[in-house]
């Protein structure tokens, strides 16, 4: 057993007692205890969240907003209470600034459709970075095609950070929107979104931050960040699949046209034309994922109980520990910054293609992810066919990292 010494004096935060809250973690896979290190793809759900879904369906289920009967009232109250919780959790000034979506991808697409269709014109520049997830590239490429705007990007340096020396030459008057991932899901890089957004906003540029890997992992306060839009996914922060959010600055949302049309987003409908409610209702056409929203509320409750600072600190320590262990592996190429990073390590082993390595790991109960992680441009940038990625959450332990190391050492032997 490896001995945990971090910074030598302060012992690591131990959250292993929380594992009892996660039923899925206590299973064998291929005859060995599951080690779930694919949290950047999707987190596991605590019993509190799963039970809240059951409670909702067994006691309160009904359509929201439109009813005057008891179940509908209860559902609506819990639904809107969840919006308040989420708003507070991300530091929104106003509950009405939180729009529920399926997740980060839909949130970004909302802005890349509604906002972009209203404001982008031919010749305008959309600025993103070289480390964006496909979900923050493709919507803008599509928006560029529709509007005649062009896409540009801030390149990524060898150490996995943005090449900010180019910032002033890239962040010009032509730029209408700047969008940036908060925490990279492939590199772990934590981008200086606050500074970037301040620069952009000073030039009157609208800003969006992709917070898929940030919310629920480190303290997020949209007002401090100073962006105009912030997108995130519930399923990566202990909430059910299929729910997420878009935070939008009130004055931006107020100027935006509807996107989806349908029930709940309207005021008056005739057979010829219609008028629309204000945000958030304006952007939530149709029956929402009621249970998903309520589950997201329960996830926020759970995370707040654990403490977002604790979660953040645990992630840093576990990642530092993993980085230190993994450096020993022969032929390893670890992507991303050496120090400050999100709780994930993507790497490439000279001896094994990621898919072979992940397959090998899987037969030992270790869940890694192998591939491009929806960041194909980054794979090209770092000249790797893909990477293997271990991504952690607060319920992961150093003992699990030790087990990963054993398995990786065996893999090296097997494939070399």
């Amino acid at each position, binding site marked *: 057993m490896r001995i945990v010494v971090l910074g030598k004096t302060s012992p690591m935060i131990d959250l292993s007692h929380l594992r009892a809250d996660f039923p899925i973690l206590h299973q064998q896979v*291929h*005859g*060995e205890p599951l080690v779930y290190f694919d949290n950047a793809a999707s987190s596991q759900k605590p019993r509190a969240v799963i039970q809240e879904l059951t409670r909702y369906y067994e006691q309160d289920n009904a359509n929201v907003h439109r009813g005057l009967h008891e179940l509908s009232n209860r559902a609506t109250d819990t639904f809107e209470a969840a919006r308040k919780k989420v708003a507070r959790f991300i530091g929104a000034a106003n509950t009405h600034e939180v729009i529920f979506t399926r997740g980060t991808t839909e949130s970004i697409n909302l802005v890349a459709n509604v906002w972009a269709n209203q404001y982008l014109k031919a010749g305008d520049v959309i600025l993103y970075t070289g480390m964006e997830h496909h979900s923050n590239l493709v919507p803008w490429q599509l928006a560029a095609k529709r509007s005649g705007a062009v896409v540009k990007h801030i390149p990524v340096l060898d150490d996995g950070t943005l090449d900010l020396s180019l910032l002033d030459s890239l962040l010009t008057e032509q730029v209408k929107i700047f969008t940036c991932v908060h925490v990279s899901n492939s590199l772990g890089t934590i981008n200086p979104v606050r500074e970037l957004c301040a620069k952009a906003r000073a030039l009157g540029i609208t800003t969006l931050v992709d917070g898929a890997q940030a919310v629920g992992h480190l303290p997020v306060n949209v007002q401090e960040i100073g962006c105009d839009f912030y997108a995130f996914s519930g399923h990566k922060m202990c909430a059910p699949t299929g729910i997420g959010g878009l935070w939008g600055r009130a004055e931006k949302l107020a100027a935006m046209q509807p996107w989806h049309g349908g029930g709940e987003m309207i005021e008056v409908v005739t057979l010829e034309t219609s008028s629309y409610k204000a945000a958030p209702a304006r952007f939530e056409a149709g029956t929402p994922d009621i249970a998903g929203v309520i589950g997201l509320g329960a996830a926020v409750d759970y995370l707040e109980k654990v403490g977002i600072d604790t979660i953040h600190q645990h992630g840093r320590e576990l990642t530092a520990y993993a980085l230190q262990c993994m450096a020993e592996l022969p032929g390893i190429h670890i992507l991303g910054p050496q120090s400050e990073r999100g709780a994930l390590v993507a790497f490439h082993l000279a001896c*094994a*293609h*990621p*898919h*072979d390595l992940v*397959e*090998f790991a899987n*037969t*030992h109960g270790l869940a890694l992810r192998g*591939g*491009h992680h929806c960041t*194909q441009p980054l*794979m090209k940038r770092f000249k790797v*066919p*893909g990477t293997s990625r271990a991504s952690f959450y607060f319920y992961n332990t150093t003992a699990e990292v030790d087990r990963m190391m*054993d*398995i990786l050492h*065996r893999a090296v032997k*097997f*494939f070399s």
Partner: protein
Amino acid sequence: MALSDDLRDLYQQVILDHSKSPRNHGQLTCDCVHVHGDNPSCGDEIDVYVKFSDDGSIADIKFDGQGCAISQASASMMTVKVKGSSRTKVNTLMQDFRSTVMGEGSIQDEDALGELQLLEGVQKFPQRVKCAMLGWRALEQAIQQAEEAKC
């Protein structure tokens, strides 16, 4: 920690050997059909170069590219098997190999498959079928191109 039998089947020594030291690796230059194949979702890429004889048999074949052990080994073993073979033989081989890795359909000529049978371990890993088929799909396209060029 016992290495699972399924995994041992998938990565038999012969397969790992082919993936580490691929046969017929490289490019053909003159008078050949070149096909690029990829599995975008996993990033595997392959370039297959085929020189056909006048009777349609495969006079020479080489490949390069990058990808997992399965895709590389499968392509390497393929080149060994098909080099010098007639169109008919290649077609049978292709069908039999597909049946082998998919675990469905009948095998017409088991003997002809030879070493390729070792890849039947892929059956247990359905997500890897497309890795095993990558080189073969490229070859199939090369044959089609050669035929279209004749018309």
